[in-house]
């Protein structure tokens, strides 16, 4: 089974075939070999003959072909490593910036940037970026996808993905000489040799397909544009809910009718002669912060509604109720501390820790330029200082302007504690030196 005998056994190619072809339209010579070992030997011969623009084709990778063809090791692993490390750094940076910088998240007492908990996501990002690089890098370095190829026009070449083995020398090889290559292939034991003419079919995409792709692209743009428009314009039309999202719930609102009860009302009136638990308010000064006038009956369950058209604070208007001016509770140190605690929980987010109207919520709202945001009142300002304690209490209870009432969240004792603390805050900003205890005043003087 010498290479020569193989050539003689299958004299499929004639020398004339090659000679007839005008050399300009030939892009290389293709030869078929009977198996992987023959192909390997041929590749070595072609390499030793000094050809560089060569290639071998087989249905599966052949061990040793890289050496036989003189293929240099690919740099793909290096690219993947670099991208993987970049992915690692990028993943960590992303988590750090999102959870510790841009919007700090405090979760289960862990530090804002807690490395152990950031490892899993970082790892996944490394794998994802590296895997895409390995795949796309392989395609890119191989010049794929490549729909048109002169070799594909050879009917015989189709077998390369089945059971055929081919060797190819390109015409633009510096040493290329059609005749010599053909002879070399024959010497190497080729069972079939032929020139590969340059591709006659156009390699560019047909216009129709281009057009179709363009139309598809344009259509694909429509939904994002519609979303963009919907998000940046206003509309009079009622909202259309794809998902109800608990917007419409099956309960009755106040003042609505209901078939359930004989009187047709959804709201249930209070049973005559009863007071709901916790609604028995004996001491008006303590519970309301003002003494109700003779004319309005003090409602037991619903304190006086917030005065919608409240005049400017500090100037007591004629229609204002009779606010208490003295604390109806005993003022103690522990009450003050309670007040500080509750103030910092309920009030400080908007009014700020010092009550100057600079709480974090307010700052964030202003930073986001929320158009409907009304800056909270500066509690240290003279108008508030001038308010009687009962009025401040009433504000906490029922709210004022955009601020809602806190009666549901804060029990009356704590409301008074807060009022006391607000008074302390006001005092802290307007105190004279004489009012400060001796030792603390000394410290202040030293600072000056």
């Amino acid at each position: 089974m010498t290479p020569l005998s193989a050539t003689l056994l299958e004299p499929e190619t004639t020398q004339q075939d090659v000679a007839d072809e005008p050399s300009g339209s030939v892009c290389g010579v293709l030869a078929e070999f009977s198996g992987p070992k023959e192909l390997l030997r041929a590749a070595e011969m072609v390499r030793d003959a000094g050809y560089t623009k060569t290639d071998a084709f087989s249905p599966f990778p052949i061990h040793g072909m890289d050496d036989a063809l003189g293929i240099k090791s690919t740099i793909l692993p290096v690219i993947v490593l670099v991208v993987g490390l970049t992915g690692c750094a990028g993943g960590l940076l992303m988590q750090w910036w999102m959870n510790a910088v841009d919007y700090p998240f405090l979760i289960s007492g862990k530090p804002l940037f807690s490395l152990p908990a950031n490892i899993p996501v970082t790892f996944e990002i490394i794998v994802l970026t590296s895997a895409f690089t390995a795949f796309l890098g392989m395609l890119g370095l191989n010049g794929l996808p490549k729909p048109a190829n002169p070799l594909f026009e050879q009917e015989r070449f189709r077998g390369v993905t089945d059971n055929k083995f081919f060797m190819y020398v390109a015409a633009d090889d510096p040493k290329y000489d059609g005749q010599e290559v053909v002879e070399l292939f024959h010497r190497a034991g080729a069972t079939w040799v032929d020139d590969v003419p340059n591709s006659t079919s156009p390699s560019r995409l047909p216009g129709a397909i281009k057009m179709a792709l363009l139309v598809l692209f344009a259509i694909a743009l429509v939904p994002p544009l519609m979303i963009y428009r919907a998000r940046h314009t206003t509309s009079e039309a009622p909202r259309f809910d794809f998902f109800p999202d608990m917007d419409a719930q099956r309960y009755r609102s106040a003042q609505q009718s209901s078939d359930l009860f004989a009187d047709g009302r959804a709201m249930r009136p209070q049973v005559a002669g009863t007071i709901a638990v916790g609604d028995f308010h004996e001491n008006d000064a303590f519970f309301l912060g003002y003494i109700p006038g003779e004319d309005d009956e003090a409602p037991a369950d619903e304190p006086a509604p917030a005065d919608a058209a409240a005049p400017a604070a500090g100037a007591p208007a004629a229609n204002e109720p009779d606010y208490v001016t003295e604390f109806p509770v005993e003022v103690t140190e522990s009450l003050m501390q309670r007040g500080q605690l509750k103030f910092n929980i309920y009030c400080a987010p908007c009014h700020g820790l010092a009550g100057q109207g600079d709480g974090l919520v307010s700052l964030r709202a202003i930073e986001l330029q929320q158009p409907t945001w009304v800056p909270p009142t500066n509690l240290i300002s003279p108008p508030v200082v001038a308010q009687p304690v009962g009025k401040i209490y009433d504000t906490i209870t029922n709210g004022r302007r955009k601020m809602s009432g806190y009666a549901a969240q804060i029990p009356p004792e704590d409301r008074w504690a807060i009022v006391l603390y607000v008074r302390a805050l006001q005092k802290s900003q307007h105190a004279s030196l004489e009012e400060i205890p001796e030792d603390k005043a000394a410290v202040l003087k030293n600072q000056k």
Partner: protein
Amino acid sequence: MTGHHHDISFDPERDRSLRDKGAQYIRASLITGLVCLGLALVIGLIAGGSSQIDGIFESSTAPTALVGVVELVADAENQDVAAYEGRPISEIAAVAEKEFGEELPPQWEEFLHRSTGSGWQRFQASYLVAFTFVVSLSLGGLFFVLIQHVTRAGWSVVVRRIAEIMAATLAPLALLSLPIIIPLLLGGHALFEWNNPQLIETDELIRHKRPYLNPGFFTIRSIIYFGVWAFLGSFLLTRSRAQDKTGDVQLTHSMQSIAPVGLLAFALTVNFFAFDYLMSLAPHWFSAIYGVYYFSGGVVGGLAMMILACLWLQREGVLGDEVTTEHYHDLGKLLFGFNFFWGYIAFSQYLLIWYANIPEETGWFLIRQENGWTAVSLLLLFGHLLIPFLGLISRQSRRNPKSLIFWSCWLLVMHWVDLYWNVLPQFSVSPWPGLVDLLALVGVCGVYVALVLRTASQGAWLPIRDPRLNESLAFHNV
């Protein structure tokens, strides 16, 4: 690939000279080992284990229990805390005990245990580190042999004998467990706090674990562990050596059929060995993955030792060119893979305990994160996982003998650091290894090497008539 026949040349003269040389090595390492162990014991007993208060008020990682108690004592004696600098902790403890008694913080007891142990305790701890270290290397070897048989591997035949010898050494290694078991049976509790009669009285958890953690059952279990390993190790080695003489294929069958059952027994024994010898050092602590953790570190150490042994034997001329770059490449891949696996297990254990943040579990990590132990923890993270990961990731570094020697030595050291980090924080506040640790390590390793060489001296270094030897000789990485 066919027709690749390999003749193992046999030269009686050369063989005799090698044997003599081997005997010299055995004597030398055995003597070195025993001398070092003796020195370690003496130094340990003389130097004692008591530590002093050193700059704890400057360091942010000083043990909180100590800082708190020194402040209490200073307050009671109306002195500045600086006055306590340099005084032995035991002295402070005595004062604190007298002044405050029951009011001392609960961590104080534990801290005291770790900081004022005797020199005997320190020696025992250092010995335990060295002992579990060499046992893990042999277990790595045993695992390697079992896996090769289970998977019917052909590539590894030329390096399998080394692993077989390491595995068979587990039988004499059982003797090295005596310095741990005998004191325990005599009622000692320097190493294992759970044997402290006082704690058994007072500590509810230790009492709860008493049916498992008691000297008698501990000894029985140790006998079972070493019995199983000695059986597996010598079974595999004797069969393999018998094949050297007869070439009987049936022997391969018998090794292959015991391997799966052997793996099952291996998994159970290694797991509970790690629980008993290492996890129970902190008798309150528990981690279900701990056995896997010890196992993964052991495989890394075992592979590193195999690579080093192989290269050394080739340099000595005992092994010829049968072991090629291709085999080293594969061993390097396994080393890389199992080191990553160790990292995976270590991270899983840490993350779950860190995240759930339950005090009964976090205490174990807490004492490894203060007073300088942080540096050792970070050394493990970088030195055991990340740096070798990058070092071994490239194909070239796994095929180059020099780089393999470097990384194998590196990982062996790191594996020892790992065990040191597992054991010593229970006994020492300071992370620095002392002379005792190093002497104990050299001592136990010396004895171990002598045992390995003695086991090896009874036969060939290569399974010369294994049916898959040709496959292994012709093996080529794709």
